[in-house]
């Protein structure tokens, strides 16, 4: 309303100058807007592919409609259950494990005195900057059945038989949770750390004078003050629960078929359907399933965040 009124009052000369000022700004925005159009908006209508009998020669729009057949087929397979379970369960475990570790490390770092804490922070952030391919090499150096460190230098001296790590599924939930934690801990603790540093030191001094121990200061001051940040970041993470880190689930287990039942997530399923199995419609159906459920979750998470703290919401 207010802006309408403002526009009505605007004199023609003023409007003209506004337009003159705006044209260069629009020009500046143009390349970026075009890129988003190509990269993000043009593929969006392509989700109708999931409702079609795709024939490459007819293209997305020329192919015949198939209704919900692709979805019916997808959900009649065991795959739909497995990929949904894996995606959600891994994410839930990641959220909990990463949260506990990140908060603990942030608290320790904030309480340490001395220059070495800067060093710790740098070192633990480093894995975050490595590519999934490099990480898969690092894991391979430890787990390679023939040359790996674990089989040769830990199990052999103990007189134990080497393990074919890339064939045995029972270890992978732990490996993946560990690798994810290893990669993300430096990154995840940064926000908590910067929040803690912002707290009023006076509270801690007062508590200390009243005889509060370090542990009491942490549980009675730091953690309660950190609660809003924890809730917010967790809600954001829950909003992304339908998406997985493709590199982690595809590269680190080296796309090993024997491990699919514990490493296949929606993202890896979509990828394999498209490029390895050539099953484009199934892949598209799984993609749409992810996009729609993901959209609803991100939207709900944001609405929840906005209720909680409007400044932190995306919109």
């Amino acid at each position, binding site marked *: 309303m207010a802006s309408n009124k403002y526009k009505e009052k605007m004199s023609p000369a003023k409007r003209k100058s*506004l337009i003159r000022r*705006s044209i*260069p700004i629009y020009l*500046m*925005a143009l390349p*970026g807007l075009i*890129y*988003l159009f*190509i*990269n993000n908006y*043009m*593929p*969006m*209508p*392509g989700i109708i*592919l999931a409702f079609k009998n795709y024939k490459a020669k007819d293209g*997305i729009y020329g192919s015949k409609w198939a209704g919900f057949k692709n979805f019916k087929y997808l959900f009649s397979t065991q795959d739909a259950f497995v990929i949904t379970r894996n995606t959600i369960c891994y994410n839930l475990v990641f959220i909990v494990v990463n949260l506990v570790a990140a908060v603990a*490390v942030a608290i*320790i*770092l904030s309480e*340490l005195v001395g220059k070495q804490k800067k060093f*710790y922070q740098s*070192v*633990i952030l*480093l894995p975050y*900057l*490595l*590519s999934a*391919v*490099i990480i898969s*090499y690092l*894991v391979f*150096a*430890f787990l390679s059945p023939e*040359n790996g*460190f674990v089989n*040769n230098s830990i199990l052999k001296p103990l007189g134990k038989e080497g393990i074919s790590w*890339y064939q045995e599924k029972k270890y992978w939930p732990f490996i993946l949770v560990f690798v994810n934690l*290893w990669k993300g801990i430096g990154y995840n603790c*940064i*926000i908590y750390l*910067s929040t803690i540093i912002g707290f009023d030191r006076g509270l801690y001094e007062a508590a*200390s004078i009243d005889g509060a*121990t*370090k542990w009491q200061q942490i549980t009675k001051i730091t953690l309660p003050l950190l609660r809003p940040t924890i809730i917010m970041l967790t809600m*954001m993470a829950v909003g992304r629960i339908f998406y997985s880190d493709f590199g982690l689930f595809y590269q680190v287990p*080296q*796309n090993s078929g024997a491990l699919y039942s514990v490493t296949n997530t929606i993202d890896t399923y979509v*990828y394999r359907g*498209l*490029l390895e199995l050539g099953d484009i419609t199934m*892949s598209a159906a799984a*993609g*749409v399933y992810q*996009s729609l459920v993901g959209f609803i979750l*991100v939207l709900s998470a*944001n609405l929840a965040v906005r209720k909680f703290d409007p400044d*932190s919401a*995306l*919109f």
Partner: protein
Amino acid sequence: MNKDIASERRFQLLGNIIMIIISACAIIPLVLLLISSFTDNDALIRNGYNFIPEKWSTYAYEYIFTSGNSVVHAYFISIVLTIVGTALGLTITTLLAYALSKKFLPGRGILTFYVVFTMLFNGGLVPTYINYTTVFGLKNTFFALLIPGLLMNAFNIMMMKSYFVTGVPEEIMEAAYIDGATEFQAFFRIALPLAKPIIATIGLFIGIAYWNDWMNGYIYLTKRTDLYSIQNLLNRMIQNIQFLSQNSGNIANANVGLAAIPSVSVRMAMAVVGVLPIIIVYPFIQNNFVKGITLGGVKG
């Protein structure tokens, strides 16, 4: 009071021990990688990857840099890709972010929504792949490494936009307009210099994303392996190894059509070479990187 000092000392000791353990976990895999790359190949085959090599050797690096193989070439592609991608991506990100920070701009709300919506919903891999391959014919071109996904994202734009809003005061810009500066002059002479910190941070994010990306090459470069970045080459190599170990019965067949498989130490040397630029620049970028994460923080 004495009890306090004792408890504080205990906390410091315990805290340092915990952090030393976590820090060690963070770098030990990289140390193993580095040592393995300098270990004699036969010793590696006998003892596996090890922290204490039986015999040192620089053979792996000599092999990489002398035997006119694809490593140097892939390295070159990665460097060109990172430079071009960062320059281009940073330019369009900065321009769009600046535009969105202009409060007087008619339609600003709509444009902001246009950007933010891409964070909420996407068509997914399949339509994106079909779009880039059939409409734009990116398959097996250098552009396939450059364009899809990496050039710009809504997250960086929104981060930079809020920096322009808070870090570049409206009054200074207004003063420039009154002095007769055009929009472009005001942008280049006033807004850009003031926004240097965020430009450095976003440039860093984009650069690292390009250097580390392997998916674009993996998806779109099906024939042109000569366009492989170092990440793609590394990826291809580990796949071949995996393929061989799963089909060890017919190694002779497996070798047909696959890149020759370098020895055990060369693999690790290549991974070291792939990660080296990150390690080298890390001490310099680290501060900026942390600042950037704090800035974008909660929204990530």
